[in-house]
């Protein structure tokens, strides 16, 4: 190798990413080239200096504790679900002479049990709340990304007989669209998008000048029911669930007008419009 080493080659050398034959060739060149040797040294020094400098932001202790609690709560929730599925074993009768001792133990267990149940309930509630908040955050991100992209919907139509069939074969569920929409509300089209790696429908509506995203997804069997936050980052959020579907709408329109659309959608699922 007679040519100077390329910057990529120098970087790969510093990162230990060269294959054996490349390394041999590079070493041979470095033995003869002071300039490249100097650059290789500087690359290695820069890497070390960057490593030190970039370890810059320490995680706040309180936040770390909160995250540990959150993960532990999720584990507790999963454990609790497992316990619920475990079949009960029959207890055996004890001699009456030990009844008083058992009575004390029973009272203790009752108190401890109540405390444990209450605590599990609190943990479950907090975990469900955290899940719902995370879900709304993701939905909000999808809505913002759609607005930012400023692209026409993948199916551009205000006709529900066009929009609904477009999803055939694209999503593992189906839904109904309302025949009558509230005043000033119009269907603009729809997108196929993804949430938690699952395909979902994103319906685009306009209410006046406001854009609304309505996300419809199949409800997971293990999904816990929880109340959605009413607002997220200034956006209004509303939704409902059926036995099979979970629907979330998000927009910057005022709440009453968004609720009108949600009610129409909910009614359509019940009444079975197209």
């Amino acid at each position, binding site marked *: 190798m007679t040519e*100077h080493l*390329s*910057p*990529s*080659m*120098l*970087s*790969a050398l510093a*990162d230990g*990413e060269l294959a054996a034959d490349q390394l041999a060739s590079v070493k041979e060149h470095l033995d003869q080239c002071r*300039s490249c040797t*100097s*650059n290789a*040294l*500087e*690359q290695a*020094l*820069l*890497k070390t*200096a*960057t*490593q*030190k*400098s*970039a*370890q*810059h*932001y*320490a*995680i*706040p202790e309180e*936040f*770390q504790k909160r*995250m*540990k609690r*959150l*993960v*532990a709560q*999720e*584990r507790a929730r*999963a*454990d609790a*679900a*497992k316990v619920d599925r475990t079949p009960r074993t029959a207890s055996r009768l004890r001699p009456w002479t030990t009844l008083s001792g058992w009575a004390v133990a029973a009272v203790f267990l009752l108190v401890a049990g109540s405390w444990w149940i209450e605590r599990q309930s609190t943990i479950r509630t907090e975990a469900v709340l*955290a*899940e719902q908040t*995370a879900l709304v*955050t*993701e939905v909000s*991100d*999808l809505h*913002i*990304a759609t607005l*930012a992209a400023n692209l026409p919907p993948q199916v551009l139509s205000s006709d529900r007989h066009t929009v609904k069939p477009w999803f055939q074969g694209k999503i593992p569920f189906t839904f109904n669209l309302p025949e009558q929409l509230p005043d000033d509300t119009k269907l603009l089209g729809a997108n196929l998008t993804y949430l*938690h*790696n*699952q395909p979902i429908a994103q319906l685009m509506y306009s209410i006046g000048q406001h854009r609304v995203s309505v996300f419809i997804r199949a409800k997971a*069997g*293990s999904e816990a029911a929880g109340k959605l936050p009413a607002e997220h*980052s200034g956006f209004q959020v509303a939704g409902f669930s059926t036995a099979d579907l979970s629907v979330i709408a998000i927009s910057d329109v005022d709440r009453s007008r968004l609720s009108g659309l949600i009610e129409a959608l909910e009614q359509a699922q019940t009444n079975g419009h197209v």
Partner: protein
Amino acid sequence: MTLLSWKREKGKADLQTSTFEDLAVPLLPRLYNVAHWLARNAHDAEDLVQETVLKALRGFASFEPGTNFKAWLFRILRNTYLTSRSGLAAARTVALEDELGDPTGPESYPEGIIDRETPELNLIRLSDRAALQAAMEKLPPPLLEVILLCDIEELKYREIAIVLEVPIGTVMSRIARARAFLRKELQGGSLFSREVRA
């Protein structure tokens, strides 16, 4: 590829939850550090980490034991960042690709970017941690993320390629550019100061 097969398996998540805790909790400080660099403020960094951990927890059934959990987790962090407000804002800033031609080519930036005679001054500046941090803060997002994954998280090029969903050639090219950028910044020059608003 293992990391791409994120299909859910019902019930598996329950069995693996405790393992997730064991794997994820020690990585929280690292996640936060990278999240802070990307989001550029503490509040957004916390949001980013929390969302990442919740997403990872929910999708843990699709993680295959024996593969690189850290790379898997950082990929989720990066994808979450891209759909966050700060990520979307950063995405609108086109920094380098158009200016330097083919991003996958190893020689796709000016030869003059490398000083064949390394000044001693450079070596002294490398020991100036504040100057290097200031230079890193100026790195365009595509170069910042690659240098964080390579130098801080010590991921291999092929792992970085999976996290960023780009070819290895692009990873190599971006790392070289990032280092060239840092060197220039430390010398007081700003080779890539031009930004184009999309």
